[in-house]
């Protein structure tokens, strides 16, 4: 593709009406989390901006993020891949394979140097020179460093590329880590989640594609429009939390009635994501709605914060911190009583000694 067409040109080529183009822009505006004030800017960008070249690479991961991505309903993932971006290289979605495929990657990197968007799924395996994750005969670290050098923007999809992912759980045998330290200081937009919500994935890449800038991000590099709120603060079960109505077990009346899952270890109060407002599969449901407490899959280190079904970690037979705390409290109180008795005994014997001396 020599001349890269814009979204509007792509619509024209396919014979779509101006009306359906504008409707598409309305959908995009709301998807990217903008107010309608931004609509004219979205239209302008969609008319003029050439479709961005995207290189999408996969590292140490399960490709679950792609499974999520291809189920995006608005915009349809196929629309994004086939008409909204120019996806030049993708480990999972490309039909090509082998040496020509790898050569195409090098060509793309050279041809669009400094212009392409790099999407990364999967963590870096840092241990033993990175041999635990190989891609095209090289370590994934090598591929990432090569592709990151000429990237205009880098998007880290999924908790693996953002924070290391489940394979980074203790003892982390492969030294799995987020990609941030391996991209030569370039800013990384983190789109964490295991997997991220499909519409969030498409929304972020569309933002970068249309405006050529990364979306507004928080201190951790996550787009504010999707990760600006806790699930707890957007959860439809929040009134049950405030009222003090909790499911105590997975099969009690509270669970059946759809009460708050806080006591079953729900991580909603610590998790930043759009599950509460966007939900999954075009707003059909999300984990809490289906009665499963949130496990905080878009949080750094969520994999080591087990058990997912309790508020506090358990220490075997000792129980949780509260049980241990009560035990230590009782022990301290007992120690204090013992010390008091011993102190009095010591004082009395000392005074007797002094008295004896006086008598002599």
């Amino acid at each position, binding site marked *: 593709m020599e001349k890269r067409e814009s979204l509007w040109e792509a619509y024209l080529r396919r014979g779509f009406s101006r009306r359906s183009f504008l409707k598409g822009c309305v959908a995009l505006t709301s998807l990217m989390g903008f107010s309608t004030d931004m609509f004219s800017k979205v239209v302008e960008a969609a008319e003029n901006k050439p479709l961005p070249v995207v290189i999408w690479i996969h590292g140490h991961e399960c490709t679950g993020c792609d499974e999520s991505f291809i189920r995006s309903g608005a915009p349809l993932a196929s629309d994004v891949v086939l008409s909204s971006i120019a996806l030049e290289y993708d480990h999972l979605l490309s039909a090509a394979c082998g040496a020509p495929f790898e050569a195409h990657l090098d060509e793309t990197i050279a041809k669009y140097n400094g212009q392409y968007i790099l999407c990364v799924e999967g963590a870096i395996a840092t241990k033993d020179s990175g041999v635990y994750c190989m891609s095209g005969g090289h370590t994934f670290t090598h591929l990432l460093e090569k592709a990151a050098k000429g990237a205009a923007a880098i998007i880290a999809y999924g908790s693996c590329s953002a924070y290391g992912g489940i394979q980074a759980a203790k003892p982390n045998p492969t030294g799995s880590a987020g990609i941030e330290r391996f991209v030569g200081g370039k800013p990384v937009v983190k789109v964490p989640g295991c997997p991220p919500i499909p519409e969030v994935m498409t929304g972020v890449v569309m933002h970068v594609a249309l405006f050529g800038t990364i979306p507004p991000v928080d*201190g*951790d590099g996550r787009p504010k429009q999707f990760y600006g709120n806790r699930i707890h603060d957007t959860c439809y079960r929040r009134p049950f939390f405030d*009222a003090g109505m909790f499911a105590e077990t997975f099969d009690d009346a509270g669970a059946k009635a759809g009460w708050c899952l806080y*006591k079953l270890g729900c991580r909603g109060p610590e998790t930043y994501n759009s599950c509460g407002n966007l939900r999954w599969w075009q707003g059909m449901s999300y984990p809490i709605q289906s009665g499963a407490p949130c496990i905080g899959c878009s949080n750094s280190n969520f994999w080591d914060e087990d058990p997912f079904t309790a508020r506090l970690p358990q220490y075997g037979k000792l129980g949780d911190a509260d049980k241990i705390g009560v035990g230590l409290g009782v022990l301290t109180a007992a120690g204090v009583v013992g*010390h008091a008795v011993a*102190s009095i005994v010591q004082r009395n014997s000392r005074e007797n000694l002094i008295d004896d001396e006086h008598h002599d």
Partner: protein
Amino acid sequence: MAIKSVKEVKRKEFYIFSPFLRIFHWIMASQIVILFATGLLITKPMNVAITEPVFSITSMDLVRDIHFTSAFILCASLILRIYGFIINKGDRLFPRVWEGHFYEETVDVALHYMLIRPHHASFLRNPLARGSYAALYVLLAIEILTGFAMYFMTNPSSTGGMLFGWVNVLVGSEMMSHYIHHYVAWFIILFAIGHLYMVIRAEFMEGESEISSMFSGKKILAHNPKDANELD
């Protein structure tokens, strides 16, 4: 004839604690009790036996509001502590770790408390107590930092979120802030048990107005304390 239970003893009065420190102390003590009780209830809330949220007297919400109000009162009262710290030398009884004798004296006091030595030298505040209060302030600081880090992140781009959000990043995740907040609360309670015992013990064994000093600001000592120079 002298009454047997009346003895004439020569004692010296030392004015140590400013009223600001004393007021702060009692605010802190009361708020720690409230914060600990409500904190436990927030981790493991009671289940109200109702069928509709509208019938609730907003139990969890109420408990959390009490916790937050109490936390703000405690933080506000720190202003008293800081003011007293500035104007009064007796409010500044640091563990003087930079002075060599601190360590010998610590060992001396520790041996006494282990009942190996019959007594220790007289202090306005002994080095072990100094160390333990310094540790308490560290624990308090951790509670305040992790507490606000959780509280303000309702809106991460708010001023409070900006001021305290880094704590969650530093400890690894927001859940970790919850854990640390909860665990440190237990350590503060263990400190409180020990503290309560030690002041009662001091009163009981020495009778040197250890408890009343936190009301009157004065200690009435029979011996000349080694650290009396710190009040000049």
